């Protein structure tokens, strides 16, 4: 088990290094490079720019700059926002909760609904429900999240007036109920694609398990179908689900960005978009790296969880 962990952690470190290299390349692709903000100042002469270049160390070979940048990242110095001078990590931290709330809620919805659909589809194979669910899942995967959000806003906010059209809370009323009220539509919209993914996965996983010998044994023992389902089948299908959840993270973050834009949700995704609009490149780069690190860590946690639960790995 510890050998497994060591293995995984060394892989993670390699991955983080590669991710940082990719990030550094993108950072240098931005027109004007790190001096972009200064280039707009009409009072700047070429001399000043050269002096700044010297000061910021931009004359050094790229690989030296990379090591310097990476070292600063590790120490927690992610630069300062061009907008308000705040440390990038602080800015990200301010918006983190909103995104996590949205992601968490929609993942919960997606798993709950998707699992139910998937299991039902597997146990009633080839029924009308199953066919509808399969086709429905494929269509759901094809619907652009933001379009679904706009349609949702149109129906539930503009036409029916049941749900608010945006933001995380209404100013003046910040009760838990208000937060929940605002959370409903965005999280359902974000969950759509993932319900499709989960339902397809659960259907396949349930089918795989249900045909195995130990289920036949359980039936022969006289256990009720429902008990077999809940205890044995779902339990075994659950384990790869944790790994799948980790693999879904990039997708959920992408969906979250788009959903946050449509619903003006004050999260990291919208911060990313706003920062690009403002040309606030430190925050943009910071968020890019942060999202990648989030994904990598998420997958690591999923792998550790699986390793702890799966006796085959735990006892190896």
């Amino acid at each position, binding site marked *: 088990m510890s050998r497994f962990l060591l293995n995984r952690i060394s892989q993670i470190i390699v991955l983080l290094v590669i991710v940082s290299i990719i990030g550094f390349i993108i950072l240098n692709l931005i027109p004007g490079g790190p001096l972009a903000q200064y280039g707009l100042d009409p009072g700047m002469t070429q001399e000043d720019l050269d002096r700044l270049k010297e000061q910021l160390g931009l004359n050094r070979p790229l690989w030296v700059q990379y090591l310097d940048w990476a070292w600063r990242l590790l120490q927690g110095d992610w630069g300062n926002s061009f907008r308000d001078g705040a440390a990038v990590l602080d800015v990200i931290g301010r918006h983190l909760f909103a995104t996590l709330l949205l992601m968490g809620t929609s993942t919960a919805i997606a798993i709950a609904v998707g699992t139910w659909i998937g299991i039902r589809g597997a146990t009633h194979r080839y029924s009308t429900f199953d066919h509808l669910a399969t086709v429905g899942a494929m269509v759901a995967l094809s619907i652009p999240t933001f*379009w679904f959000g706009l349609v949702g806003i149109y129906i539930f906010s503009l036409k029916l007036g049941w749900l608010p059209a945006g933001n995380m809370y209404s100013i003046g009323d910040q009760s838990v109920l208000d937060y929940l009220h605002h959370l409903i539509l965005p999280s359902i919209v974000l969950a759509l694609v993932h319900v499709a993914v989960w339902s397809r996965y659960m259907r396949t996983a349930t089918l795989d398990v249900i045909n195995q010998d130990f289920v036949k044994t359980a039936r022969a023992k006289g256990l009720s179908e429902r008990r077999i389902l809940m205890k044995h089948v779902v339990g075994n299908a659950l384990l790869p689900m944790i790994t799948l959840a980790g693999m879904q993270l990039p997708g959920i973050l992408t969906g979250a960005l788009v959903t946050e834009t449509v619903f003006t949700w004050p999260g990291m995704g919208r911060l990313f978009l706003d920062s690009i609009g403002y040309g606030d490149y430190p925050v943009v780069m910071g968020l890019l790296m942060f999202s990648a690190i989030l*994904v990598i860590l998420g997958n690591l946690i999923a792998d550790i969880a699986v390793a702890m639960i799966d006796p085959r790995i735990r006892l190896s």
Partner: protein
Amino acid sequence: MTALAANAGQGRWWQSRTVRRFTNHRLALLGVTMITLLTLACVIGPYILPHDALYIDLHARFLAPLTGDYYMGTDPLGRDIMARLLMAGRVSLLVAFFAMLLSTLIGTLVGVIAGYRGGWTGVALMRTVDGFLAFPSIFLLLALAAALKPSPAMVTVIIAVTSWMEVARIVEAEVRSLREREFVQAGRMLGLSGVHIMFREILPNAMGPIIVAATLTVARAILMEAYISFLGYGIQPPLPSWGNMLGGAQQYLATAPWLAIIPGVAITMAVTSFNFIGDGLRDALDVRDDRV
């Protein structure tokens, strides 16, 4: 001289088992029909429709669908939406198609080399793939779009740069399994070069999964183009794309909802058809499953 295991049999290609399996898949046929109709509409439509996609008529702004011969209504500048939709379709579909070609090229190259060489080259390449996969696609897309100029060609390249990883993974797995087969060993014994084996022996036999991956990549590329154009960093107006039509529609949602609904339906139809086709191709090309 290549060893092609696939359809070395008698009869025409459309009578082969693979094609028969594909045509048995109703959803796949539906997908083919939908995308053919859509493509035909986009190519021919703007020529036969009564209104021009670029003609601004400020007297005819915000007309609802089915007013006069504006079948899908007009946009805030009085342009016919149906004509604009089909022009946008050309852009979106072309961008997606070329992005697919580029990403499949890159992905296949990386996958074949990584899969055949194995060892440290393979590990290094696949770790790089994993590195790219760690970034959520839209973050990567937007960061690149912000850094580079947003011309349609650049958008295509950016989408390709964020889509090649899946193809690379699939190809690498397939090549790794094919590497141990006898025809590869025979090739090595004959003294064939690594490049020859990789691209003229292994690659033709790996085409199945590559084709499936390519189809699904088109679907994904259409969505990605829609996403970044919606957010304002993809195809720029006045060049229409389904994504930027939706982007401009958000502010008029209360008064002119058809502006938002119609392009979304088009995107969904296109992506769904490619997903159906990809699913059908996957079933048809799956060599392990021996039911006809």
